């Protein structure tokens, strides 16, 4: 009886891990897409609205779902920190703090951090160029993420169940 319960638990856990991995794979392109929308919004605020950066971030955050919204808000809020950080610092701190909540991976993070080192410190044209460059990189990542999703999503789900089944068989 106890054995049966144990086996069921292992099977359940394995299945869940598989599903979770699959969900992450599915969430990644979605998160990249929202990030792209956010950057688009920032481009409008900066390029056409001349909105100051902290305000532009707040506004972009209002139209962005979590977890990205929290990241943007924190980046804006950290600018008021006592040690007077540069935008680059507060931006990367905010990204580090909230990255774990998103399904995105290191290439996206690198592109974002690179963008942070040029936001707010040059003229409008330059800002728009930097934003477009970051968007281009993210688009490439999005395509790759979609490929990954198609290829591995189902695989992950079945792999979870199968590995759990294998463990159960080995134990029994």
């Amino acid at each position, binding site marked *: 009886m106890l054995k049966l319960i144990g086996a069921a638990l292992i099977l359940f856990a394995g299945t869940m891990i598989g599903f979770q991995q699959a969900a992450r794979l599915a969430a990644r392109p979605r998160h990249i897409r929202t990030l792209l929308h956010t950057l688009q919004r920032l481009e409008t605020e*900066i390029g056409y609205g*001349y909105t100051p950066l902290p305000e532009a971030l707040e506004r972009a955050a209002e139209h962005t779902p979590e977890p990205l919204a929290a990241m943007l808000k924190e980046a804006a809020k950290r600018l008021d920190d006592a040690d007077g950080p540069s935008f680059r610092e507060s931006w990367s701190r905010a990204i580090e703090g909230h990255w774990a909540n998103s399904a995105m991976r290191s290439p996206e993070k690198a592109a974002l951090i690179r963008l942070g080192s040029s936001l707010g*410190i*040059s*003229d409008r044209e330059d800002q728009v160029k930097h934003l477009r460059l970051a968007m281009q990189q993210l688009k490439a990542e999005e395509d790759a993420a979609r490929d990954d999703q198609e290829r591995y999503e189902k695989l992950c789900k079945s792999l979870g169940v199968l590995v759990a089944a294998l463990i159960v068989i080995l134990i029994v």
Partner: protein
Amino acid sequence: MLERVTHLLPPEMAAVLGRLPDGVKDRLEEIRVREGRPLEIGFGGESRFAGEDGSLRHTPEQAYRPSSELCRKMLERMTNHSLYAMEEELRRGYITVSGGHRIGLCGRTVLERGAVRGIRDIGGFNIRIAREVVGAADGLLPQLADRTRGTIVSTLVLAPPQQGKTTLIRDLARSISYGLYAGSGGMRREGRKVAIVDERSEIAACVRGVPTFDVGPRTDVMDACPKAEGMMMMLRSMSPDVLVVDEIGHAEDAAALREAVHAGVSVIATAHARDLQDARDRPALRELIEEGAFAAFIELRRTAEGFRSRVLRPGPGALAREPTALQPERPLC
């Protein structure tokens, strides 16, 4: 004076300046920051290099040298992390921040079709701390009063840079707007409508269109507007009794000013010149002076005890000659 601008400085720089002697901090006028080069401060008409421990020296060898990282941070703070929103200001070479402080910037300019479009690689800052001296014009107002019209006469304020011209006309505008122009004894009349054309955002120090200095209840401000155009706009739209402009000198300024004077508006203007004689050597000013556009002239001078002013009111017909009716010099504040 220092605490008024600390919010603009990165913490490291604020700490260095915070160690300056109190007497210097109170009289601080300029902070000149140059990337990788000695920090210089100007106070009470003098300038010194500041060391990291807050000591002041004539020689630059042991002075504190701000790093490029620090300068970048400072620029970000001054521009609210949004350099791109300051394009118009960068084209003019300085930004005005809340409180009326003006920050001059130096770097490599970006050109577009031969005209300066902005500055990049900014490596030099000059923070000029604005001071509002309420009552600076009190002693002068009775001498400028036009009792028959119940207003004040057109006045030209003459002084070299950094002698308090802007401070003086700001207070003149405030007093006229409040109705304190009638003279001494606290007697008050009805305030006059004052229009300020503030091309360099120094007189009223507007932040998003709202003056941060007290320029009076009946005062309208056209911020960051070219003077000649602004004067015409104000005449057309705001029906001012008194028009206040800073630093006239171009031919088009003179034309607009003439227009205002003939429309029955009193004009208070400033110009860079040592004295009236000096002002006459400048073509645009000479024409105005000889036409009698101004009924009074104020010469400002800065001495160890403070600012001194002298009011000249040449009578009609005496305009082309040396003015004779000299008022005694009096301290301004």
